[in-house]
């Protein structure tokens, strides 16, 4: 085992990084002038709509579009009969191990209730909508399966013929270490449970939307709400049969994505094709209902987990069978299955592991990438069972988790030794902050309302390595007045990523934050980028920006050295002033780079490329709940999230990520579930009327604690990711707190009031 030395630049005098500067997009957002893809309006623009099937599995026998085409104002109708029939990746990380190539723009077969079957472009949205009703489709129904159990039966209909049987999306992911039999033989206590996972969806504020336009030279421009502009460009070019220089993808601001907007959606292809067909710009925007039907949820499924424990509190064996429900297409199932399964090797130490992960096609809406990417599910199972083991063995759960927490140098899920581990710090700090030992003494009781405390832990990697070998890129240009322009391909989902990147550039260059401008999300302009996901934007994109800034700084200093009659390595830049170390000679950056009479401005362009491996961030959530034993309602009373994320670039933005993750996680654990009718495959709650996320009124006080105790040498000044972490630990923490309050252990989410009452009735019966 190798333990990496921490090679972190020992910088302490930060002037911009670590400060909650005013976000660079504040003004345009509060004034409503920030431009989102849906705001683009072009002369002569048409409106596109998608007709969706109301059958879960069928062959299309006949489509008659004549009445729709005859409707005044309709300009084009597309079906599987007149779009390119090119098999493409569901998510456009080309040829990565994370995604499947199993989709067509339109197929002659539909595989889930709500799949798009035809598209219309018309002069108004209303006419397009009306035309959808005029398209006649005759289906030949096929047998459909909606659960993983049904889909895995030997006689189940095959939803996709990929050469694998039992509707497997990919060959099973198998991870084995040590000797599982020996591990169980050594155990004094063996726990075995099956965990049932609900179907939360990301419910981003901004529905999927794009606007497309072809110019006279056959070049497509698409403004789209996507996390992966360059990937969209690649997939569109491939399917449409045009070179990359004929596709330009633009994404300025986004209203969220949470991972799901890594996929390439039907409307992006269709909008491009409708625009080509009509020679007019076309706009397509999903309705809220379509973000459910045509969107991507978290993977539902089942996890069977068996672990062995010794009396002295060690984990000797961990065996798991994970089966994710992929829905009708593969999307990110390979990635989610790999990451979720591998994650189970870690968090709490165990030398003997035997894990198998699968993803199964069913005739239900598509599951895809979503904040926490398989790990939300598998750590829910592990943490709940470890919590129960602690109780059975007579340990305090927090002490037990601390005792078993992953350590420096342990092999991480990525297969690498962990460098910069912070889980122990998080647990210790949370125990202190919550006054854990004392508050746990007051739990439960026999009243109508009972309170309890729970702890949940997590770790999550920044970057998708080793599933995807990623690369972060940046270009930094210094203008002749000393101001700076950063060109980055990373998308701004709304997290403040571009502010963080600007802070890093400002810090590296020694200029004020306000000197930095950002150009983002235009594939014709900015350097290539893999997309904003995997908690890697600050870690990887930030490091690339830092490298590019350092490059420019070198150029500036070598230009300034003769002007200051010094060597470049004697020079520093602070607050926009270049100083010669050890002397009182200085000049402003502006003077150094500005044109002078007879001397033109010079080009100062720095390029940064960074190829990361992976770092891990850690978190422990301490939660107090109150359970109403008559109504079954669970109120989360307070949350103390403790996160170790290396160097914090923007404290308020980091805390915002954590609070948002907790809000989403509370919803997933207690109320959010996208429900599919198991007899027809129909979506039962594709709207915010019946898909209930917690709102501000439901949010408890959150006392966020961020630690910088375990920086990673990979990130800028040791910074690591924080995007996905906060949604992982909150679920187990709540479930464990419910147990502390009422003595019932649940093995599923969401845990609804009805579940609580049913369980309490069971306990009364048994007693």
């Amino acid at each position: 085992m190798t333990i990496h030395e921490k090679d972190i630049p020992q910088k302490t005098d930060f002037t911009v990084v670590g400060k909650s500067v005013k976000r660079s997009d504040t003004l345009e957002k509060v004034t409503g002038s920030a431009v989102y893809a849906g705001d683009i309006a072009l002369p002569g623009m048409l409106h596109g709509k998608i007709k969706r099937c109301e059958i879960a599995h069928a062959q299309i026998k006949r489509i008659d579009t004549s009445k729709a085409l005859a409707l005044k104002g309709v300009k084009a109708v597309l079906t599987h009969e007149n779009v390119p029939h090119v098999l493409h990746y569901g998510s456009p990380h080309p040829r990565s191990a994370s995604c499947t190539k199993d989709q067509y723009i339109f197929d002659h077969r539909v595989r889930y209730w709500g799949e798009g079957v035809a598209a219309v472009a018309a002069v108004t949205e209303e006419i397009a909508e009306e035309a959808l009703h005029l398209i006649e489709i005759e289906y030949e129904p096929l047998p459909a399966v909606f659960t993983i159990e049904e889909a895995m039966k030997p006689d189940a209909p095959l939803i996709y013929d990929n050469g694998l049987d039992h509707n497997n999306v990919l060959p099973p992911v198998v991870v084995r270490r040590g000797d599982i039999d020996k591990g169980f033989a050594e155990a004094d206590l063996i726990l075995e449970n099956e965990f049932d996972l609900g179907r939360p969806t990301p419910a981003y504020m901004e529905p999927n939307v794009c606007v497309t336009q072809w110019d006279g030279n056959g070049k497509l421009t698409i403004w789209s709400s996507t996390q992966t502009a360059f990937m969209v460009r690649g997939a569109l070019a491939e399917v449409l049969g045009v070179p990359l220089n004929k596709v330009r993808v633009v994404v300025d601001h986004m209203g969220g994505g949470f991972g799901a907007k890594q996929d390439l959606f039907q409307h992006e292809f269709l909008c491009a094709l409708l625009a080509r067909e009509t020679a007019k710009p076309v706009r397509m925007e999903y309705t809220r209902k379509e973000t459910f039907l045509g969107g991507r949820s978290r993977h539902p499924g089942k996890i069977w987990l068996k672990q062995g424990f010794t009396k002295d509190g060690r984990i000797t064996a961990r065996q798991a069978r994970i089966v994710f429900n992929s829905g009708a297409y593969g999307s990110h199932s390979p990635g989610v299955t790999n990451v979720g399964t591998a994650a189970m090797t870690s968090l709490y130490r165990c030398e003997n592991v035997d894990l198998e992960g699968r993803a199964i096609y069913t005739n239900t809406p598509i599951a895809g990438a979503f904040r926490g990417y398989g790990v939300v599910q598998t750590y829910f199972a592990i943490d709940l069972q470890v919590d129960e083991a602690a109780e059975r063995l007579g340990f305090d759960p927090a002490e037990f988790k601390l005792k078993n927490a992953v350590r420096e140098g342990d092999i991480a899920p990525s297969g690498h030794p962990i460098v910069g581990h912070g889980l122990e710090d998080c647990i210790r700090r949370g125990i202190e902050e919550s006054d854990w030992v004392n508050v746990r003494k007051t739990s439960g009781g026999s009243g109508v309302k009972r309170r309890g405390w729970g702890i949940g832990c997590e770790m999550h990697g920044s970057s998708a390595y080793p599933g995807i070998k990623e690369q972060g890129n940046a270009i930094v240009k210094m203008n002749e007045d000393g101001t700076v322009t950063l060109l980055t391909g990373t998308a701004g989902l709304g997290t403040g990523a571009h502010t963080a990147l600007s802070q890093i550039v400002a810090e590296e260059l020694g200029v004020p934050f306000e000197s930095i401008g950002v150009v983002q999300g235009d594939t014709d302009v900015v350097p290539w980028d893999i997309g904003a996901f995997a908690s890697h934007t600050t870690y990887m994109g930030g490091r690339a920006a830092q490298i590019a800034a350092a490059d420019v700084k070198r150029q500036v200093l070598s230009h300034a050295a003769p002007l200051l009659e010094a060597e470049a390595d004697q020079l520093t830049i602070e607050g926009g002033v270049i100083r010669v170390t050890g002397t009182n000679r200085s000049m402003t950056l502006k003077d150094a780079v500005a044109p002078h009479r007879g001397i033109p401005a010079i080009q100062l362009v720095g390029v940064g490329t960074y190829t990361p491996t992976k770092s891990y961030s850690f978190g422990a959530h301490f939660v107090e709940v109150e359970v109403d034993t008559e109504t079954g309602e669970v109120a989360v009373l307070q949350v103390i999230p403790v996160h170790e994320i290396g160097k914090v670039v923007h404290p308020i933005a980091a805390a915002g990520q954590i609070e948002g993750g907790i809000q989403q996680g509370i919803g997933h654990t207690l109320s959010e579930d996208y429900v599919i009718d198991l007899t027809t495959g129909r979506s039962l709650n594709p709207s915010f009327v019946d898909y209930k996320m917690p709102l501000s009124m439901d949010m408890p006080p959150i006392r966020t604690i961020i630690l910088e105790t375990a920086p990673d040498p990979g990130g800028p000044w040791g910074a690591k990711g924080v995007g996905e972490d906060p949604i992982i630990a909150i679920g187990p923490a709540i479930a464990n707190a419910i147990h502390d309050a009422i003595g019932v252990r649940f093995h599923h989410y969401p845990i609804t009031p009805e579940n609580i009452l049913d369980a309490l009735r069971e306990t009364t019966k048994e007693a």
Partner: protein
Amino acid sequence: MKSFDYHEPKSLEEASSLLAELGKPASIIAGGTDLLVEIKEELRAVSHVVNIKRIAGLDWKSWDPEKGLRFGTLVTAREIETWPAVVKHYPNLRTAVSLLGSIQVRNRATVVGNICRASPSADTIPPLIADGAELTVYSNAGERVIPVEELFTGPGKTVLVPGDIVTGIHVPAPRARSGRAYIKHGRRKAMELATVGVAVSLERDGDTCADIRIALGAVAATPIRARTAEALLRGRSLDDDTLAAVAETAMQESTPISNVRASAAYRREMVGVLTRRAIGMAMGGIQ
């Protein structure tokens, strides 16, 4: 959104004849917070929308300790919520309107609109039934008064016919030693439809309950009275056994359905729990 014809009558008489003439495909619009969503989502086919906001004299309100509360059909939910008379004397109605949608919605939505939409889960209806409120209905055929309790015939259905326009509502003055409460049960605290709503209005006489009305929302095809449960308590003392029997009876009187929001069994169970809690709150709030 599907297109429709839009009308702006200037008087009740004009509106009534227009509505009578247009018949079922016409819908009155006041706040529009329900109607426009339903049209957009294609939940309701409407070919004529008749705006009554141009008719003078429908936005009045008055409070009198003897005569009670009266307000016109265009008074918004937010006005009711923030009206000191309501805050002081009708905490049940106050709670109900304050839980309807968001503040933005309540600034547009009208209480009468919430009633006439006739949703089984409408928040304002149970407290108004429990307080014995009545609607004044204008029609060119003549004006009449309909108790809120008698308005509903099914989900979204009322006894009103084309040409009828509810002009206002009257809630009787609270009697001496009376208390009232409304409890909404939902999956979250705001922006929510009631899974179960329970309103209780009662009068106390010494240790006994002199009179009581229990109204239940979202547990039958229309908001209902739990009359058998009420009868168990009327003239009786409020001991635990009686309360348990009342709760149990109210559960039996409800006929909820199962859907994605909750199962029928859970809704029925909540009728029991919340009826008991609402009686306790109403007793606690006696003025």
